[in-house]
């Protein structure tokens, strides 16, 4: 996909881009002054609590809320009865999800009712005083159960597309399969027919909880002016559209304010707790806050588990020729972002190699478990490791080093990944050489250690629509308005550096606040590693407009034609003569004030469809070295290396931090994390039982190699990062554990699983 080149960006040499300036938001966060939704109080605000289903699949026979309603301090109770005159179904991909259960519950944790009360304790007590009679239905707890012949159906109503499905023509639902995506390139059957080596296997990836430390929290206010929300949402403009459609409001009467987010990682993408909070506030006629607890956020969204069958074909000399993949994603009881995860996963499944034939069938499957959607590097994370394991098997059989076999087969820039869309846009060969060197691939190995390398790509950028406004005040400070959400990634710092660079002034004097959809211009979403690339490009273009203004005013000071005017250090210069920006602004407006305003957008050259995409291919590459304790099965990560192929690092330190964070989350996904469901019930729904990495799990060494080839579509040749390393680390750990002699077929690689795999292998050898 290409971005329409509306304006030409001017690269200056202001020294703002490419330096590791301190984060602009670090001070207020350290001081505890940074505001998150849960820190806010709206006058008259009530507290909402959701009654959630204790059963995975049932018809609701009756709901008795009379006792709850009679409790002092309870203002109202919301149930399915409140939507008799409203189509209460929502969902950006498929419109399959009611605000509160409409006669049927489909997963444990599904909202059945909600209470608004004067404080949280009262609301919580009232929720316990609502009595619901359920008539349990047969359920499907896993993908296998959902695909069985005569499986109970999770949904029976006709499929309806959501507002932002972005998936072309939606296929009809087939049993419990709500979406499918096929990828075909070349002739896979022919490739397998002539192969010397064929490896095959079945792999399983677990459901995962993103655990943004801040849980989903929303304050809603509904009055004659419309709907106002303070919400933990990554994509405020998409949520605005969905709320407007759901509650029959014009777009402009829905106002969404997004302060800092305490992490997102995809868990706050698209609409989540906003509809139920709005409905409750509407009924209560007062502002209401709903703040999830961790177990509730786990029931709100998660990463889908996946079951994968894969075959890879090669010739004896190690040429990779064919790959055939079937993957079923467990999207839970509602589609959420599952269809996009499915499509992206299919695109990631082959890996960026020069295949003669590839065939991928990807399915998105309903089950009676918590809905699942986005989580950092979705699609690639579930699949890349399986492909890497197969390439290593081929390498082993062909007697070729794992790095070498990849290097031989990698796509070169300009080669096609899939028909249509963007060809390979990065130097993969250079990247793998760098990551191998950073890990010390060729050093001798200690006993019981293993090394692995992983290579993949991820369709990044989502839909390329972003806009920005840059305002220069009379004192020369610049304020950037951009609708992208700061959830920890450091984009406000990156935007300051981008605007500072264009305006030839210190980035420390550029400021960027959170989103208020009433004033902030449109941005499609915060995810898919798109903020620096696309919102950043909008910021650069908006700043460029201010820059043009400054130069035009400067010409009034030095009107001689061809006078060598340049902008530098917050001033216009002509030779040794200098006029500061405040002087320029005073020249235009007189001495009393005024403001220079620049506005710009980014939009696709075509329609921006998924097929035209992606905006860029994010490189998912990493290497790792592990030690496996043969007695206990415990895996220790010794060293990791990642490649941040970012085109141009706006802030190198923040790029490294992205990879470090992704590395640790990758270690969690590969080694520890798994949502354990039994008959649709989540067994580990607290942080006591759901273990995420701590500082004690930090590898001895993690190297991040920043690659700057200037080949990105973003400002100054940049492109996004922060997700690729995640998928890469999972693959590198899986292959490293396999290299240490453990057969790997399922994640996470817990001590028990590793120990069992080793024991089974030994038994087989003795037989």
């Amino acid at each position, binding site marked *: 996909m290409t971005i329409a080149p509306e304006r030409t960006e001017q690269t200056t040499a202001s020294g703002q881009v490419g330096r590791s300036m301190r*984060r602009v938001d670090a001070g207020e966060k350290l001081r*505890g002054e940074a505001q998150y939704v849960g820190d806010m109080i709206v006058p008259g605000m009530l507290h909402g609590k959701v009654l959630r289903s204790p059963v995975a699949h049932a018809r609701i026979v009756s709901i008795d809320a009379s006792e709850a309603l009679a409790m002092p301090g309870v203002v109202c109770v919301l149930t399915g009865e409140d939507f008799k005159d409203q189509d209460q179904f929502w969902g950006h991909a498929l419109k399959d999800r009611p605000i509160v259960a409409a006669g049927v519950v489909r997963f444990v944790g599904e909202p059945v009712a909600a209470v608004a009360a004067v404080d949280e304790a009262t609301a919580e007590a009232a929720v316990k005083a609502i009595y619901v009679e359920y008539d349990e239905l047969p359920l499907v707890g896993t993908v296998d159960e959902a695909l069985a012949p005569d499986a109970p159906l999770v949904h029976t109503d006709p499929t309806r597309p959501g507002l932002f499905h972005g998936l072309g023509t939606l296929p009809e639902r087939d049993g419990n399969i709500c979406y499918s995506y096929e990828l075909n390139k070349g002739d896979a059957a022919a490739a397998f027919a002539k192969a010397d080596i064929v490896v095959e296997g079945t792999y399983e990836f677990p459901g995962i909880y993103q655990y943004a430390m801040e849980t989903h929290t929303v304050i809603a206010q509904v009055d004659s002016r419309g709907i106002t929300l303070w919400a933990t949402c990554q994509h405020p403009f998409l949520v605005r559209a969905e709320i407007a459609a759901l509650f029959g409001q014009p777009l402009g009467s829905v106002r969404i304010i997004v302060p800092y987010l305490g992490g997102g990682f995809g868990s706050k993408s698209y609409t989540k707790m906003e509809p139920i909070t709005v409905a409750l506030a509407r009924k209560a006629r007062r502002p209401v806050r709903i703040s999830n607890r961790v177990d509730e956020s786990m029931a709100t969204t998660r990463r889908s588990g996946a079951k994968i069958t894969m075959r890879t074909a090669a010739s004896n000399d190690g040429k990779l020729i064919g790959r055939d993949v079937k993957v079923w994603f467990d999207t839970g009881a509602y589609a959420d972002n599952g269809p996009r995860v499915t499509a992206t996963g299919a695109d990631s499944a082959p890996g960026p190699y020069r295949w003669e034939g590839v065939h991928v069938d990807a399915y998105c499957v309903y089950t009676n478990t918590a809905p699942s959607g986005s989580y950092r590097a979705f699609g690639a994370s579930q699949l890349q490791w399986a492909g890497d394991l197969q390439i290593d098997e081929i390498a082993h059989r062909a007697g070729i080093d794992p790095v070498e076999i990849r290097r031989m087969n990698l796509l070169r820039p300009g080669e096609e990944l899939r028909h249509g869309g963007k060809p390979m846009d990065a130097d993969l060969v250079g990247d793998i050489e760098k990551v191998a060197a950073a890990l010390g691939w060729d050093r001798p190995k200690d006993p019981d250690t293993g090394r692995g390398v992983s290579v993949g790509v991820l369709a990044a950028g989502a839909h390329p629509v972003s806009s920005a406004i840059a305002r220069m005040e009379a004192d020369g400070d610049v304020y950037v308005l951009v609708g992208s959400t700061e959830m920890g990634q450091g984009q406000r710092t990156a935007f300051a550096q981008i605007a500072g660079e264009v305006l030839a002034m210190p980035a420390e004097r550029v400021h960027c606040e959170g989103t208020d959809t009433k004033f902030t211009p449109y941005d499609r979403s915060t995810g898919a590693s798109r903020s620096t690339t696309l919102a950043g490009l909008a910021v650069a273009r908006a700043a460029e407009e201010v820059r043009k203004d400054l130069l035009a005013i400067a010409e009034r000071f030095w009107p001689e034609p061809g006078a060598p005017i340049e902008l530098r250090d917050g001033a216009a210069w002509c030779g040794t003569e200098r006029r500061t920006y405040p002087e320029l602004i005073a020249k235009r407006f007189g001495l009393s004030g005024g403001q220079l305003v620049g506005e710009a957008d980014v939009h696709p050259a075509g329609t921006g469809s998924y097929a035209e995409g992606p905006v860029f291919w994010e490189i998912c590459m990493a290497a790792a070295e592990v030690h496996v304790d043969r007695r206990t099965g415990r895996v220790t990560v010794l060293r990791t290396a990642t490649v941040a192929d970012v085109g141009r690092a706006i802030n190198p330190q923040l790029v490294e931090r992205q990879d470090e964070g992704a590395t640790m989350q990758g270690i969690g996904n590969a080694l520890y994390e798994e949502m354990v469901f039994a008959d649709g019930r989540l067994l580990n729904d607290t942080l006591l039982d759901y273990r995420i990495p701590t*500082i004690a799990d930090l590898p001895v060494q993690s190297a991040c190699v920043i690659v700057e080839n200037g080949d990105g579509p973003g400002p100054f040749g940049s492109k996004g990062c922060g997700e690729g390393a995640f998928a890469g680390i999972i693959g590198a750990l899986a292959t490293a554990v396999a290299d240490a002699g453990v057969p790997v077929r399922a994640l996470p690689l817990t001590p028990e699983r590793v120990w069992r795999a080793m024991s089974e292998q030994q038994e087989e050898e003795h037989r």
Partner: protein
Amino acid sequence: MRVDLTLNGTPTALDVEPRELLLDVLRDTLGLTGAKRSCDVQVCGACTVLVDGSPVSSCTLLAVETDGHDVLTVEGFREQPAFTRIADAFERHAAVQCGFCTTGMVLTIHALLEDGAFTDEASIREELSGNLCRCTGYRAILAAVGDLAGIGEPA
């Protein structure tokens, strides 16, 4: 119930319910929102405050239990000179991302520095394992604490 405590250096009398958690009293009653709520089960450390100088999870401590004690939250700590030093190390190493773990992390680190608990890299890994951070991947935090404890930057 009446609770008399020293809160951020000021003698303070509070009227609380016996079942009320310190975190709720700080955040909802007193408007001290620097301590964050996340796991609710004493695992993550986001709600950490110092009670008589020791890190405590305020999500599992009853407010009444602070009677007669000294409670320090980030709102009090940020006025102390020791805060500036820690904050500077965190900023230098970009050890802050979303910030949700940060105040609890900073208070814990302050208490442990005062105790001389950080003697080498292994002790940092051990002592800070009760403070989760999902964003940073900990490496920058390890480096910042290494600097602060004068044990050099870990390799």
